[in-house]
């Protein structure tokens, strides 16, 4: 444990000069599931400075390169969770239906044990999201699971596009309409809140543009009062932000697509989208993507008419689909969640694994860096004892930027970095399930998702 702290401090020092630690290694003779370029047997992967530099049989590595023997093992790209709330200390700024100015990236928690446990399930990147209390919530943060480092900024996925949480349906209605007595109290209200926010963003953007033009002619021109909320709405209008919208019912999914059409916004991934299957042709036509649960349903009324075949129907209709966790528990076994699409609809191995690798990478705009095993991509790699779509597969090792962050054989049982010195015996948590999506609203409510 002391070593980890020491190493972290060492790495943090590097971060001062703006770099995250990277490693070199060669992974020998594994069955490599590249996802985008087929399955390669007894194949080596050479990693240099945290990137995949060569893939092939019996590769030569520079002398002294760390060797990992993957004989008999399955090697796949690090799993990506397009919807989670791990590694952050705050989820909901539930004080207003519109809060695009807040950023969960300001509240990264490097000590969150959930990050290590996600690594122990092969997950190397997750999308730490604002919660679903607000119609337009905060800005989310794509993070890399560099567990062991103690500098919050070391977890930020460099150059990942900005993403912002929207939420439709029961959650914002209950928090604001029922809980706080402000609009929205219905799905009609939800639409108006969004249209109003975009309209305000347009006005703000027009004022800013007018000022920029004026400034050229008049050096004494007075800029409009800066407003982060409307600036963020303007950034969405300008295509600088990917909307990630918590949604369940088909009608509200259609509603948002219609709103976005009117404002010329194109980049959107619908999160959860339990009824996405009902409007799969429309999603495909719009170019919207969907990030769904494998089989969660019936936890509230708006997910009563769900089906575990959702991911299959969306995929077959041409919608880029991923499977997410939204849970510190489920993020530990997304490979098994993806495997359920083989029971429910019979997706192929590559299709099923795409749901937790290249497809979430596309949805987060990071598919040029991660999500498949290809030369030039980040060396984010998960090694399994068997095929990851088998229930019997056990994650063996997880690598981020060429550095081993989880090692089944060699990690100690207790992987806490921060231990309360006054704690005599570690606290018993039981199987407690926290409603992550609604975390921070528990004073008003107590409900999941």
């Amino acid at each position, binding site marked *: 444990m002391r070593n980890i702290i020491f190493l972290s401090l060492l790495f943090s020092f590097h971060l001062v000069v703006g770099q995250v630690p990277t490693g070199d290694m060669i992974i020998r003779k594994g069955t490599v599931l590249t996802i985008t370029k087929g399955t390669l047997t007894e194949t080596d992967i050479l990693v240099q400075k945290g990137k995949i530099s060569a893939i092939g049989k019996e590769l030569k590595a520079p002398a002294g390169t760390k060797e990992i023997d993957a004989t008999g093992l399955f090697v796949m790209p690090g799993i990506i969770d397009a919807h989670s709330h791990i590694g952050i200390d705050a989820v909901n700024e539930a004080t207003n239906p519109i809060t695009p100015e807040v950023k969960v990236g300001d509240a990264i928690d490097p000590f969150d044990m959930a990050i290590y446990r996600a690594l122990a399930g092969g997950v190397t990147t997750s999308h730490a999201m604002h919660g679903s209390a607000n119609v337009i919530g905060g800005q989310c943060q794509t993070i890399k699971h560099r567990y062991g480092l103690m500098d919050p900024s070391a977890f930020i996925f460099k150059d990942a596009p900005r993403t912002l949480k929207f939420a439709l349906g029961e959650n914002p209605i209950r928090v604001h309409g029922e809980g706080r007595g402000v609009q929205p109290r219905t799905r009609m209200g939800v639409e108006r809140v969004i249209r109003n926010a975009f309209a305000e963003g347009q006005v703000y953007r027009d004022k800013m543009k007018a000022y920029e033009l004026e400034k050229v002619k008049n050096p004494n021109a007075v800029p409009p009062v800066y407003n982060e909320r409307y600036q963020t709405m303007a950034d969405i209008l300008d295509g600088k932000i990917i909307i990630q919208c918590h949604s369940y019912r088909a009608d509200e999914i259609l509603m948002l697509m219609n709103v976005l059409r009117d404002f010329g916004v194109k980049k959107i991934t619908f999160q959860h989208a339990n009824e996405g299957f009902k409007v799969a042709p429309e999603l495909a*036509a719009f170019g919207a993507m969907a990030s769904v649960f494998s089989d969660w*349903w*019936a936890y509230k009324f708006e997910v*009563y008419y769900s089906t575990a*075949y959702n991911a299959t129907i969306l995929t077959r209709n041409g919608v880029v689909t991923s499977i997410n966790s939204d849970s510190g528990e489920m993020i530990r076994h997304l490979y*098994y969640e993806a495997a359920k699409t083989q*029971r429910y609809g019979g997706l192929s191995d590559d299709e099923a694994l795409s749901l937790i690798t290249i497809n979430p990478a596309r949805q987060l705009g990071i598919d040029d860096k991660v999500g498949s095993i290809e030369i030039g991509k980040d060396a984010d790699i998960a090694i399994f004892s068997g095929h990851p779509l088998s229930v019997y597969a056990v994650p063996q090792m997880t690598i981020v930027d060429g550095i081993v962050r989880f090692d089944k054989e060699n990690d100690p049982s207790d992987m806490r970095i921060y231990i309360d010195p006054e704690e005599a015996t570690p606290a018993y948590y039981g199987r*407690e399930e926290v409603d992550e999506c609604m975390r921070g609203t528990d004073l008003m409510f107590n409900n999941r998702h």
Partner: protein
Amino acid sequence: MKKYNPILILLVFVQSIIVLHAQQVEKSTFGVFALTNATIETVTKGRLENATVVIRNGKIEAVGPNVTIPADAQVIDCKGLTVYPGMVDSGTHLGLQEIESISVTQDYDEMGELTPEMQALTAINPNSVLIPVTRVSGVTSVIASPSGGLFPGTAALINLEGYTPEQMYAGFKAIVMNFPSTGRRGRYDRRTDEDVKKDSDKAIKKLNETWDRVKAYAAIDSSTNGKADYNPQLAALVPVYRGKATAMIEVNKESDILSALKWIKDNKIKAILTGVDEGWRVADSIAIAGIPVITGPVISQPTRESDRYDTGYKNAGIMHKAGVKVAIRTDDAENVRNLPFNAGFAAAYGMSKEDAMKAVTIVPAEIFGVADKIGSIEVGKDANIFVSTGDPFEPATQIKHLFINGWNVPLESRQSLLYDEFLNRSPGVTKESVPGKS
């Protein structure tokens, strides 16, 4: 031009009407069935190849490689398929909950701490949408259990087929008890150490006081020849006190498990421990006490931050290895269908596949005293059977046939019907529905 036989055309026409009609409402059918050319995982008597199972009058009439197929049997060729006994989930809210966030659809948690007379069977909704969703995975029986409070009620074992709770009842009931949970409850428990201790003491005291009242009531009941004053709460607990009924005791934390074992011994209770999340820490003590365990969900987080990441997965296997009789549950309602995958995780993390299969078939049957009826493929047992393309713990495996109490149950649920309707939606995208093109 060819001439068609008009009678043949008429026959085809009539038949297509019958088929169309059958598609509208697919019902379970009862009769004599012969599952032939199958691999049979009997669970108790090994694996049989190229064998036959005959089902008649709801029972398994014959099993083996040299079975004569009865003339009146409907033959189902199972070449390349495997026959398994239906799986049993030993702890669920199935039938007692429709939608988790809507309290008026939840019938498992009656008001009050002491309500052992509440009958889960009374509140089972045989028409719950959740039931077909569950059984198409090969789960044919579940414990439907009340929860909340000290003695929340009486759980019942049910088969997942039937139109009334009585038709579903599978012959076992148990009084549910939540053993007092001591200590801090998770990271959001903000009580002071003093309050934690006070609350723990109070809970244990309350249990002992309640039990003293049960003892007194039982004594009066004996001395008055069953004419003690009407008290349904205490009356419901008397059979447990007398060792005639089983208590399912929910307990999870290490120290609480040890307290529960002592309490069971002191009071000579016929008990089953349920939950038992930290059983791996005290597996030997549980084994020595000889108390069976129902644990799960296997797919769960460790109970402490300091624990190894996979303790939840390993718990069942560690207890089994120590000699504890272990059955597996999901503790779920809408996703009881994941029972086989929970067993699969137990197998991936230390249990053998055979033992994991037993933990969802014959072991719960033995724990509930119904091993003469369910839990394996043996002559004379109830025909709770599913047929699959292979190992049901593997997600890719498909379930092909399902029998519950001898009824051939259609592999249909609202979720599969939605798939059928929406895979190739008709009409698909139309001029009116294209977003972004108005």
